[in-house]
């Protein structure tokens, strides 16, 4: 399965220069796979960089080459839509460490001729952003009109605005945070331990073995998926309803609809995602804390920033709760940066930013389209 992932053809750029990483390593021949929509204006001032979440990819508005499913924001990005590709040049790149064409643990290490596996350096959110900015450079774009992202994409958008304030006009951060909380790290650790406990993981060197840690990755996905939903949402969608049966089996089959649903989420995930990428990307999120270099004073990361910031949270999102967005807003105020913030109401938890929400879309459209 992981082999199939590696063999897909993606639109990609090999970075002309080595990429320095936060861990101190320098990575050569980094590939950044990306999708682009719309046309770059002659003034090169209409580019929007979309940053994807943990398990997503660059196929934001086009069918996924493996699953055939529509893009994750296909209702948002396109001609005449909220992020109008008749007007904007929209770029979405697969993050460094992922498995949809960009360099990651499944890529071949030129030094050994074998996949990096766990020899891949631990990357950070800032490293992912650095790789994307190298792509932006290669496309000849000096300043992005906007950077937009939800969840881990929001972390990248924040990081980009903090590290490259002169290179982006506005940053929209949806259902995200300036640091990963202890609870979020804890859930990630459960997922990683599930992967590493799978005998098929083989210390990460499973690529040539014909065995991949599908069970571990699937359990990791199941645990994570719960965190993307809300109790109210789960109750409304599944309640205690049984799956294709009238009575309990007094066994450990998926009696309940929610069990069946989670198992399906787990199984379908392993077909499209590399287990080692899951380890690396969750680690990058865990390491994310924009205030760390400033001894916890987040405002220092945005001091004098000319970027216009927009933040949106959802009231039922307990993974990236409103308090995290408020913390960013407080820091932006203290830094004198321009900020907008609203908490939207939704029963769907963290996943709300990916679901059909005209209220959210109107906000996105207004924020990125407004004249300064």
């Amino acid at each position, binding site marked *: 399965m992981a082999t199939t992932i590696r063999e897909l053809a993606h639109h990609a750029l090999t970075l002309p220069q080595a990429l320095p990483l936060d861990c101190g390593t320098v990575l050569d021949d980094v590939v950044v796979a990306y999708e682009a929509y719309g046309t770059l204006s002659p003034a090169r001032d209409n580019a929007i960089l979309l940053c994807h979440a943990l398990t997503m990819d660059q196929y934001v508005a086009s069918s996924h080459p493996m699953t055939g499913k529509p893009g994750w924001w296909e209702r948002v990005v396109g001609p005449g839509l909220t992020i109008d590709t008749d007007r904007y040049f929209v770029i979405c790149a697969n993050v460094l460490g992922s498995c949809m064409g960009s360099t990651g643990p499944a890529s071949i290490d030129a030094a050994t001729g074998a996949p990096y596996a766990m020899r891949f350096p631990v990357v950070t959110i800032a490293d992912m952003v650095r790789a994307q900015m190298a792509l932006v450079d290669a496309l000849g774009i000096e300043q992005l009109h906007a950077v937009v992202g939800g969840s881990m994409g929001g972390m990248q958008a924040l990081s980009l605005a903090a590290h490259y304030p002169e290179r982006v006009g506005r940053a929209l951060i949806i259902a995200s945070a300036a640091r990963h909380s202890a609870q979020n790290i804890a859930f990630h650790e459960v997922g990683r331990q599930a992967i590493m406990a799978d005998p098929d993981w083989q210390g990460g060197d499973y690529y040539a073995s014909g065995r991949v840690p599908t069970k571990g990755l699937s359990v990791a996905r199941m645990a994570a998926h719960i965190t993307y939903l809300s109790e109210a949402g789960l109750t409304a969608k599944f309640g205690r309803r049984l799956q294709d049966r009238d009575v309990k089996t007094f066994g450990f089959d998926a009696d309940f609809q929610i069990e069946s649903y989670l198992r399906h989420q787990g199984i379908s995930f392993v077909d499209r995602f590399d287990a080692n990428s899951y380890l690396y990307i969750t680690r990058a999120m865990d390491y994310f804390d924009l205030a760390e270099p400033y001894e916890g004073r987040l405002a220092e990361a945005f001091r004098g920033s000319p970027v*216009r910031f*927009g933040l949106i949270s959802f009231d039922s999102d307990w993974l990236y709760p409103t308090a995290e967005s*408020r913390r960013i*807003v*407080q820091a932006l*105020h*203290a830094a*004198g940066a*321009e*900020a*907008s*913030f*609203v*908490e*939207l*109401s939704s029963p769907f938890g963290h996943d709300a930013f990916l679901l059909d929400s005209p*209220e959210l879309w*109107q*906000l996105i*459209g*207004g*924020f990125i*389209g*407004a*004249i*300064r």
Partner: protein
Amino acid sequence: MTPLRSDLALIAREVPAGARVLDVGCGDGALLAALRDGRGADARGLEIDAANVAAAMAQGLAVVQGDADRDLADYPSDSFDIAILSQTLQTTYRPDRVIGELLRIAPRAFVSFPNFAHWRVRWSLMWNGRMPVTRELPVSWYETPNIHHLTVRDFKGFVAERHLAIDGAWYLAGGQAIGAAGANWRAEQAVFALRRG
């Protein structure tokens, strides 16, 4: 564009061009938009209602969802030239602290509020013995957001007590400016320009 509410139009005229302005309780951002477009102001807002914030954000205004009683503490001192509190003072839990915060965040503030000593209000209380429902106070006692009613005289007393300075005062009735004489009887709304004392 719908014309600005009369107290907002008055405040908009008084704000100098290019000022950094914080509108506390900015609603859907009507004043912010007027200040941005007409005055070239760096105008930002704080608003409690999510639908209002969304409407303002969709117009490209910098508005943060929050509560004047709690969230003004997040703004650094002197981060704005002017703070505005229009028709919001009487809805706050601690109006005295909110005004203190306004004049910490900015050296000058505009505050507008409905005058509870207007003769219609007095009449209603006097003759009907009931809480008034008037043009400026259109909601019954049990659902009004106004929890700290005040009068022009109350406000002036508060300002004196706190040693704040009044740079200007304007009075409105029926949306029109009226003179200061007998304002505590005649004004439906009052607008004060305050300065740190």
